[in-house]
């Protein structure tokens, strides 16, 4: 019975991780094709990835878009969450629902909507457009994380700061934001994770300069080779690191 349970668990994790494991394994392939037998390990395909100007440009673009869009989404989400948590607004519940609504809409629909809108206002396809798209998809997430962390205890701490003469700007900068830094970092890193391997919106909204997932897609159209495995393994590695950082911050035991 126990053996069956272990076998079942093994099957499940195998089902989830085997494709990734094979991808990573054959990224170290020594010959031209990512098919058995494995004759590595070799780093030649990683070298090829890092000397490919288009891929490295995509890598830099992806990092740039992820950092800036996540910073913007976290900042806007923080201000919105603070506003909703601290002030009585007419129709507060409805407005909160509308802010989190994009979470339920597919990226394809959001991407298409933005494409049509940008076209209409004459905003060109670009990394900036993709970055705005990432803010649109990550803002609701940041808002939800931050809003859930704003408690009544913190409201009293803010009252104390106001009582001692803090302006609203100083209050946010010196008290509220530092007090909420674990939630802010968690929101930021989760946004980074989603922005980092987002494909559909980037594909629709960029043209010449584009992000790494779109570059990989361009590569895949030419067929499989261990280089695609290598770049896939790199993307996967970065996602894992971001997810671990997020979990460490979000589920860390805090004093008090």
């Amino acid at each position, binding site marked *: 019975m126990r053996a069956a349970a272990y076998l079942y668990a093994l099957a499940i994790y195998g089902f989830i991780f085997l494709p990734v494991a094979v991808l990573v394994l054959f990224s170290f392939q020594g010959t031209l094709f990512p098919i058995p037998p494995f004759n590595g390990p070799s780093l030649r395909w990683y070298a090829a990835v890092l000397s490919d100007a288009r891929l490295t440009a995509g890598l830099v673009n992806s990092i740039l878009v992820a950092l800036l869009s996540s910073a913007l989404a976290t900042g806007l989400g923080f201000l919105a969450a603070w506003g909703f948590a601290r002030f009585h607004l007419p129709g507060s519940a409805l407005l909160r629902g509308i802010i989190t609504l994009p979470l339920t809409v597919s990226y394809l629909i959001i991407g298409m909507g933005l494409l049509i809108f940008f076209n209409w206002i004459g905003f060109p396809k670009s990394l900036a457009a993709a970055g705005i798209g990432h803010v649109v998809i990550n803002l609701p997430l940041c808002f939800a994380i931050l809003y859930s962390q704003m408690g009544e205890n913190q409201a*009293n*701490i803010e009252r104390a700061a106001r*009582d*001692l003469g*803090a302006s609203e700007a*100083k209050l946010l900068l010196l008290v509220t934001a*530092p*007090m909420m830094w674990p939630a802010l970092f968690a929101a930021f890193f989760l946004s980074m994770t989603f922005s980092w391997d987002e494909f559909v919106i980037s594909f629709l909204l960029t043209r010449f300069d584009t992000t790494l997932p779109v570059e990989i897609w361009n590569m895949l159209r030419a067929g499989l080779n261990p280089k695609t495995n290598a770049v896939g393994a790199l993307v996967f590695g970065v996602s894992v690191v971001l997810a671990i950082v997020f979990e460490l911050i979000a589920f860390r035991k805090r*004093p008090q």
Partner: protein
Amino acid sequence: MTPLVSIQQVSHGFGAGPVLQDVTLDLAPGSYTVLLGPSGSGKTTLLSVLGGFLTPERGRVLIGGQDCTALAPARRPTATVFQDYALFPHMSVGANVGFGLRMRGVGRAERDRAARAMLETVGLGEAFARKPHQLSGGQRQRVALARALLVEPAVLLLDEPLGALDLKLRRQMQDELKAIQRRVGTAFIHVTHDQEEAMALADHIVVMNRGRIEDEGTPERVYQRPRTRFTATFMGESSILPGRTAQGAITTAAGSFPAPPEATAVAVRPEHVALGGDIPATVIDVVFQGSYKRVTARVGDSDVLARVGAETPVAAGEAVRLAIDARHVIVLRD
């Protein structure tokens, strides 16, 4: 003497019913005032009105002669010590205490020096570099006090400051609060529902009930001569004996006492009731309290509480005779 704080006909309601009803109160400089009342009596709301966290719907609040009714908390000469202390968790104790001066543009060296001095005053000189979560409840309380005092408020507002502490620490902090208040000379306004705490601390007690002031005065006066039935039962224990007035006296089940015609009942403190008099009574309950016995006896239709010596041989069911000290009987008009 001109009052430091003058609350004039303040009323405030939150939908369901009035929270404050026509509250008028004058407080002297340097005094220690306790707002005493059960939960829902409006005492915390009144403190919020004084602190500027709530603008009352009607009435005015003057502090030091200045109309502060609609002034923001930061702009009025008050500072508040919150019930949960509301310390900044990410700052050191020293930075917490110095925060008010930082907001006033005082340089770091200067505010650190002032914060250290204030921490000495509250007996926490060694905690300057620590974080709030490393301190005990009583120590956090002192940090909150030091932080509020450092901005030199004319009035310090304390919202149930000892509510979260255990009994022993509460008694100890009571003594310290009083000592600190004498040392700094600031007027303290302290909200509590604990009548023992109120009597231990206050120069001036304000008893509140259902958004109104029931009684106010020195603790001795309010305890010995409460103006209302509510005050007589909330400030210490009392037995209420209803009666009828005739010819300058009120007649109750436990005898007649001198009273004006508008009197409706008398209140008697347990310490003014003894065994061995001429009022027939039946003992219902005896509770041993260590230093005394608390006896509940039935006189006519009313229950009378008596506090008798711990050695007194008395048991439930016995028929006894009670004596009431007529000099200490409280005549009630409501």
